[in-house]
């Protein structure tokens, strides 16, 4: 589903964010990207939805060669992906319903499909009863659930989450993590960049650790801290 081969990313200011990264993520995987701030977790996600362009290497996402993608094809790629951020990125002057529907409306969906699909995802994230509220009236967890609903409304095969629990208290963090797991169980490939140790350790999923822009460890059923996992797989 996602494949990176020999991927490097050097920003225009000369900072080398990623250095020869090799990573394979299969369909239906749930993967944590961990590592200290500035080790390239976000950069890696940004390459996948082509917010950044790799300097070298091959990137394939759902069969699309992202590293070679022409500018005008980027929207097509992004319709295959859902992306969730630490700061939710909701529109404060739109209701929960409108925020979610927005993602469909601006990609040209038929109103009939919007009316059918939005209640479905709001039900999935458990916000049906708050669909007419504005983001300012919601808790952080509810806001993030709205953002997840928006990311899922176009039925993406892949959900990318950049520190999805970074702004949340432990209770909300648990709630969001459980939701991500549920989404993954429905078949969506989920990639979560985080430095929340508790989440990673509780979930016991695949953990890819980045250090200075390189993958240092890649463990199945891993822990946040290095070497505690049951098996170590070298990817690429």
């Amino acid at each position, binding site marked *: 589903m996602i494949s990176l081969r020999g991927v490097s990313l050097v920003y225009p200011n000369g900072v080398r964010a990623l250095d020869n990264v090799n990573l394979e993520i299969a369909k239906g995987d749930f993967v944590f990207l961990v590592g200290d701030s500035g080790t390239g977790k976000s950069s890696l996600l940004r390459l996948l939805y082509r917010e950044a362009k790799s300097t070298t290497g091959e990137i394939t996402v759902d069969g699309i060669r992202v590293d070679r993608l022409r500018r005008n094809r980027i929207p097509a*790629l*992004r319709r295959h992906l859902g*992306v969730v951020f630490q700061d939710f*990125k909701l529109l404060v002057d739109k209701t929960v319903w409108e925020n979610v529907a*927005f993602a469909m409306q*601006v990609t040209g969906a038929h109103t009939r499909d919007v009316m059918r699909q939005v209640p479905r995802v709001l039900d999935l994230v458990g916000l049906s009863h708050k669909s007419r509220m504005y983001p300012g009236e919601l808790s952080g967890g509810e806001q993030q659930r709205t953002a997840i609903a928006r990311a899922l409304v*176009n039925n993406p095969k892949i959900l990318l989450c950049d520190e999805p629990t970074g702004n949340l208290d432990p209770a909300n963090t648990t709630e969001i993590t459980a939701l991500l797991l549920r989404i993954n169980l429905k078949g969506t490939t989920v990639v979560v960049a985080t430095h929340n140790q508790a989440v990673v350790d509780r979930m016991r999923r695949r953990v890819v650790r980045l250090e200075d822009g390189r993958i240092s460890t890649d463990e199945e059923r891993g822990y946040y801290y290095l070497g505690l996992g049951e098996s170590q797989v070298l990817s690429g």
Partner: protein
Amino acid sequence: MDSGKVKFFLGEVLRNFTRNTGMQMTAIGTVAITIVLLGLFLFVRAAVADAGRQFLDQISVSAYLRADATPAQADAISHFLAQDPRVASVQFVPKKQALAELRQRTQGTIDTALLTENPLPDKFRIKARVTEDVPAIADSVRRLSGVENVVYGQKLVARMLQLGAVLRRVGIAVIVVFFAVAGIIISNTIRLTVFARRREIAIMQLVGATSTYIRLPFICEGLLDGFIGALFAVALLAIARATLWPRLLEALPWAQIAVTPIDPRVLAAELLLVGAAIGVLASWISVGRHLRT
């Protein structure tokens, strides 16, 4: 047709448009001023061209005969001119009549009674069908025997043409400046909207909206600015035409301007089109600049 889609889109445009009313008014006002100037320019240009045409239409070629020209020569000239397809009319003016005309024209300023003999020659007064042919007709008549001299107000014609050219150049310069100003103000207005909506734009890009789709509401906003501005301008011009124009015609009876030198409906349509075009162009540029970065 998906009416929900249309409603959503129009809602977005309306929200953009009402977000920054002050700036929107400035943009509309500037377009209005620009279009009024353009309209005035086109109108005045048409009026001047019209007046010039009428003036030129009245220009006749005077072919003066030599004092010793024979009646046979005069007949030959008359015959020659009658056969020229460019000539509309030929009139023989004997010297007596010429003197009478002169007396009438200069009544009170020159005492023609002092003249002991008639100093004026016989002449042909020739009118061309098309003003542009006047110099050529003059040339061909000059070569005929018995013709002393040919006069058709060369300098005056040249003056008229020159004046028209200068007017046009000054007018175009002023209008270019105003177009630039209107364009810049609209583009800044749109940029403010773009800035106010940068989060929405970012989300649209994130969920895979095409850049054409993202542009469209802003283009519509620019279109509205331009079109509404032009609408105001056309209304103003229409009022001016209804109230000031008749008075101007009355005040300047000698100007000989046609009542309608230019079809007002055509002019209005052109101005609305131009206004809409400035709006679209300016917003296209400023959104494009945002999307590329």
